[in-house]
């Protein structure tokens, strides 16, 4: 009888540990799934869009301005619109989208220095 009780207790302990481990696994899995399918793609898209915008803005040259430029880069569509405010000052608007989904919009005032 004592032997049976001891066996039963040991079995319950293992059972509990397995349940908790399973719960932890479910937690880790859910976190991963949530990040992978909801937050991460959004952040990744934004980060990518930001780097495309920065790359283009840093190379902006007032002598080669196009009023509207649309280009495709790695499945992203980057649209740049330049609206002159004065002779030296330009309002630069960027819109980035991917697979017809809006990712980011940014505005800058660009000052021609030469």
């Amino acid at each position, binding site marked *: 009888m004592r032997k049976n009780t001891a066996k039963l207790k040991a079995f319950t302990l293992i059972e*509990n540990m397995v*349940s*908790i481990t399973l*719960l*932890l696994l479910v*937690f880790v899995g*859910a*976190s991963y799934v*949530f*990040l992978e399918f909801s*937050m991460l793609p959004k*952040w990744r898209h*934004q980060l990518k869009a*930001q780097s495309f915008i920065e790359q283009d803005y840093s190379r902006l040259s007032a002598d080669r301005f196009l009023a509207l430029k649309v280009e495709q880069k790695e499945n992203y569509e980057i649209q740049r619109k330049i609206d002159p*405010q*004065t002779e*030296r*000052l330009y*309002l630069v608007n960027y819109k980035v989208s991917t697979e017809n989904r809006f990712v980011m919009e*940014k*505005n*800058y*005032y*660009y*000052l021609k*220095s*030469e």
Partner: protein
Amino acid sequence: MLKGGTFIYTLFILFITSMLALLFLGQNRLYSDEISRMQIAERLEENCLSAINYALEIPSESFQEGSYIDLFARGTDSVFIQKYTWGLMDVISVRAIHHKQQRTKTALLGYRPIDSLKTALYLSDRESALHLSGESRIRGAVFLPKAGVKRAYLAGAHYSGDSLIYGKQLPSQKTWPLSIAAKGWDTPHQQAERTLLDEESTVHSFAEPTLVLTETEELVLEDITLKGNIWVRSDSLVEVHPTAVLEDVIVTAPVIKVKSGSRISAQLLATDSLIVEEDCLLHYPSLIAVKSQNNGFISLAANTQVYGDLWYKNGQHLSKTSVEVNIDEQASLTGRLMAEQGNIQLRGKVIGEVFADAFILHHSLGIYKNHLLSAQIDRRALWEAYLFPIKAREKDQANVIKWLNE
């Protein structure tokens, strides 16, 4: 009905599960908040730069007192812009705001003249020709009196160049095409006055009100570091020694002496005289200025280099023989030299522009009016994007000359 042990066990499992769920939600919230905080910080930095560009090109009276604008008229990019004088220079300060987050940027402004001619010399028309002798060279456009420019034989030296002027010659008027407002000569924009400290080092941010250090007696700056938004004043004399570290500060006094070997970056504003001794280096952007009511003077000694502007203004009429601005042999100024109602004795080199009412040359053989002996004025050697620290014309284009510590 559940047995007691099973009930407690279920509660325990529920507790663990809810804790994990909370942890999970908290973690995601934390990530999300951190990323959006970083994105906002980046956006605020970009808005500060955009606001500076906007304010430089679309000036408004309201910026003098400071005003909020909605940068892109979308209700999401609010910035506070303030533009004020800092001595003879201008400062712009912008603050971009998003809820509790904000970013401030402050910069000293410089100006680029819209001058396709690249004026090297403007000598106002006082009916006397300009005479060149020795190794004198003028490169760039010149505005000269109707009497023009002539070669002169002086102190045993002929003019040695192929051409008198290496650039266009145009007629000058009696007055210059530029004027200096000097609005910030006397008072700082905001001030918190106090007497000079014994501290060896004071670094004061431009985000704070100006720190004014006053002294009624002679003031000797040695073994001291003064950086930033600091205005040093004396009612008699300020002497700057080589052991003093000055950066971005303003020094005002009737007489200012910069001792031999000093290396500073400052605005030196005197009401009587300003003497820069040998082997000094005034880093860009520095200013040397005298606004005198009684024939004061400025002197740059040999081997001194100044990167910035030099401005002299005399309340009296132009004297016939005295030297109001003296630039010794081997001394150089990179920037703009302006002397209103003062004679310039130029024996060194100016890389940039010279605006003069008259030149004078004191030589052992005599005193010569409007003579240059082995002096150099070279506007072409000044780089294309150079910004002059003082705004001299209404149409000058402003830009950031230096970011200030915040």
